[in-house]
């Protein structure tokens, strides 16, 4: 139990995918503008990452390792992720059309989201059991969602500010993300 708690804490705060490891930035800057898209994207990523961590760990330990084909890990994982995203798209379109419409272009982009592949690789390489790999994936995506929501809050404030022309847009967003990241550095001192 304690192991799991530490694992979760590590995945959400100490090694937050976006704010500490700088993985998954591309959608981060684009999606965090509206709260609804931030939420929706975060939840979609949560689903995809948890599911793919589960499937990829199984694939690694039941197929790739016994056959000695570990070098095919990247190819196999990305295919699994692409299929899962496709599946998620079809499920959302069928059962939750408004969310599907809201996410629009961002849904297929989850395939190229570094965070998904990172969580899958992390789970397969570093986690000893299927359960811990899945929990790690879920918590990593939870960290992703947390960062999205925090940044969305910051962004709403940014909208109200006057910026010098050269800093307007992405530079200002990056600098505020940097300040958020600085706040998260406080968690590094956790002596576990």
């Amino acid at each position, binding site marked *: 139990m304690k192991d799991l708690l530490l694992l979760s804490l590590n995945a959400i705060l100490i090694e937050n995918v976006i704010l500490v490891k700088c993985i998954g930035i*591309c959608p981060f800057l684009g999606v965090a503008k509206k709260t609804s898209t931030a939420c929706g994207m975060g939840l979609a990523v949560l689903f995809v990452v948890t599911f793919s961590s589960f499937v990829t760990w199984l694939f690694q330990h039941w197929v790739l390792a016994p056959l000695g084909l570990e070098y095919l890990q*990247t190819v196999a994982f990305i295919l699994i992720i692409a299929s899962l995203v496709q599946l998620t798209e079809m499920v959302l379109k069928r059962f939750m059309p408004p969310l599907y419409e809201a996410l629009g272009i961002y849904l297929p982009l989850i395939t190229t989201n570094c965070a998904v*592949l990172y969580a899958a690789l992390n789970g397969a390489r570093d986690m000893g059991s299927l359960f811990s790999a899945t929990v790690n994936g879920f918590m990593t995506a939870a960290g992703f969602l947390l960062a999205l929501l925090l940044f969305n809050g910051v962004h709403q404030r940014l909208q109200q500010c006057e910026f010098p022309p*050269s800093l307007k847009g992405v*530079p*200002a967003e*990056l*600098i505020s993300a*940097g300040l958020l990241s600085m706040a998260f*550095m406080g968690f590094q001192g956790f002596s576990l």
Partner: protein
Amino acid sequence: MKPLKQLKNALLTQNPVLNQLLGMCSVLAVSTTVSSAFGMGVTVTAVLICSNVFISLLSPVIPQQVRIVSYIVIIAGFVTAAELLINAFFPSLASSLGVFIPLIVVNCIILARDEMFASKNSVPASALDGLFMGLGYTAAIVLLGALREVLGNGTLAGIPVLGSGFRPILMLNFAPGAFIALGLLLALVQKLTARLGQKGE
């Protein structure tokens, strides 16, 4: 378009990182030192050229409906080959780049160039485009790397350049420094682009 003009575009006006804002994950994460930034840049350029060439070659036979997945599979193949070769022949690069080598698969730049250029153009043109875009990426990541290493560590490629009296800005070695440094760099680029635009009028 003449190759030289293409190169200038890729480096200055249509730089994949600084102007098109693609592939930032790896730029932020790997640019702590110039040597790892350079290593990453070279690897991405190599994968970009190879995948551009192959996708340009194979585009007639790649089915339209699954073309993105096919591109990703081919890119993944080249990335894995690069990972194996780096693990075997450049172990120090392997340990400094770590998990970011397989993450090159999802580097937006490669997919964007394949989708927009390589699938519609001839093999030599695609190869050249890959080379130039790769050079643009390398230039951007090495620039950020140099900034972070010099100001955050006092060294450039391991060689101390600012003397012992310099107190390095340690934050630049970590994620916050990466975000802020890139933000400031992009602000500079925006300013220069605006100024060039003004001159043009």
